[in-house]
């Protein structure tokens, strides 16, 4: 009971800090702006959109019918939200872990009858909850506006919510790890963003291994591909799922990314427990 109380207090403290630093308000304000953009600015009328596509040069015009146009619109909006929402969440949350490690603050926290694991997990879960709320609000809001305007209620779009939350949960493990290791918020942003970009590069492995001329470099490429969280692959799967509702190999990118996240989080906890403050 006491541990649960402490855990909830740490989560509440994360919300209070995020609110005081304008992170909570900022996240929801940006999400609201995005929703308003879809509500007032973007032309999402199906017929008008399809007609306007006729003006696009033929090389880019791959829209053959209204249904396909709708699916393409949904898929690209979904992927856009996925990229935007994930990076926004990383930027917003990266300072929340190093902030509790500031000298003068961590010593007092550690003097309380709480375990270091609970202290770190409380921050992790608090940050994750903030992002979950924002993701649900942003994706649902955008989906609702598009669906209301087009009158096409494609629920595949909403899969972006769990995928974004999952990817953020994995990247947050990296934020925590870098935060504990370096106590630097800037580095805690840079590393997960860099890993996401690298994952895009590594996902081209089928093409790249043909270009690499040595066995060890091919193995290194594939090794990194399996280790690094598959931010790009999951976005790719999400895109195709919304677009054509098939070719969905979710299992591999999910379990490999989950293992990466779990190992990183456990390493963070071990390091945090051993460090002197």
């Amino acid at each position, binding site marked *: 009971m006491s541990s649960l109380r402490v855990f909830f207090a740490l989560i509440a403290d994360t919300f209070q800090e995020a609110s005081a630093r304008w992170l909570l308000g900022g996240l929801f304000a940006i999400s609201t702006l995005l929703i308003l953009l879809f509500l007032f600015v973007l032309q999402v009328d199906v017929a008008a959109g399809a007609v306007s596509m006729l003006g696009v040069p033929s090389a880019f015009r791959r829209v053959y019918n209204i249904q396909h146009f709708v699916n393409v619109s949904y898929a690209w909006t979904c992927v856009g939200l996925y990229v935007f929402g994930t990076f926004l969440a990383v930027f917003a949350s990266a300072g929340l872990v190093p902030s509790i490690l500031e000298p003068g603050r961590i010593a*007092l926290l550690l*003097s309380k009858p709480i375990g270091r694991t609970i202290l770190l997990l409380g921050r992790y879960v608090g940050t994750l909850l903030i992002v979950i709320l924002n993701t649900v609000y942003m994706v649902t809001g955008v989906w609702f506006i598009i669906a209301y305007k087009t009158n096409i209620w494609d629920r595949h779009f909403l899969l972006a919510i769990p995928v974004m939350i999952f990817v953020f949960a994995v990247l947050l493990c990296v934020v925590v790890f870098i935060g504990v290791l370096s106590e630097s918020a800037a580095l805690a942003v840079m590393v997960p963003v860099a890993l996401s970009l690298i994952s895009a590069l590594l996902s081209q492995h089928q093409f790249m291994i043909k270009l690499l001329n040595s066995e060890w470099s091919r193995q290194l490429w594939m090794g990194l591909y399996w280790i690094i969280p598959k931010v790009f692959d999951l976005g790719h799967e999400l895109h195709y799922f919304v677009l054509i509702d098939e070719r969905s190999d979710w299992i591999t990118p999910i379990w490999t990314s989950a293992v990466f996240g779990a190992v990183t989080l456990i390493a963070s906890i071990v390091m945090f427990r051993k460090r002197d403050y």
Partner: protein
Amino acid sequence: MSTEYAIEADGLEKIYRARFGGREVKAVSNLTLRVPVGVKYGLLGPNGAGKTTFVKMLLSAVHPTAGHARLFGEYAQYTESRRRVGYLPENHRFPTYLTGAGMLNFYGALSGLSNYQRRKRIPGMLKLVGLSDWGNVRIKKYSKGMLQRLGLAQALIHHPRLLILDEPTDGVDPAGRREIHGILDRLIEKGVTVFINSHLLSEVQSFCEHVAIMRKGTLAVEGKITDLLAGAGFTINASRVPALYLNEIRAAGATVLRVLNGVSIQSPDSDHANLVMDKIRAAGGTIDSFAPSSASLEDLFLKATAERDD
């Protein structure tokens, strides 16, 4: 499980190792110390003596390289041992986004207090430290002295049996300092052990019963302040002593200072003091007063931290 001591340190040692094979720094070395339950205990030492590292080892914020510490008989590394401890760190950084009451609520929850207990205790705690009117104000608007008092309230909210205070009156004005000492005195009456880490010698001398002085990570002096400051000889105040005799007294090994109505003579022991008084009387002088003299804590501190320098 022993409960005779609030704090027990046995052979405590901390070596900080720089990353990538850098040099080692021994912050605390083979420190053995006992703090009895219910006393006011002061920890002194020059900068870098290892005081803060020692305190952090007690709170498990720093892991000892060797030895162990116990709080009320329970090993300090166990989470439960800290349930009976209240701590006010030096250079604290309280979350400035919280109000005074919000901060007490947060740290009260971390200390294991229920919602009901916190609601009940927070107004009383704010009143105790004179911040009743400031409970709903964000603490970024607090002065240094107010932050210290709020810090004391967070250390007390769960009714600890041991209070570890790092520079508790730092930034507090003399009236506020007196108030804090008053609060601590009332806690002592209730059986709370107060352990103060301070660089203010006068504060430790006036407030504490026991003192430990650390030097280069080791314990240089430890004991009751009255015992440690006793045995500094005797002071004789005399008048109408001829100058010729004063030279004789000086030659006999006494320190002679001219004061307003005569002289003050510092004698190392009772035999010597008797000899000096005989000489003064023989010369026609008058003994105005005679008392054992006590050294100040500053003298003791300087002696403890200076001698044995390599």
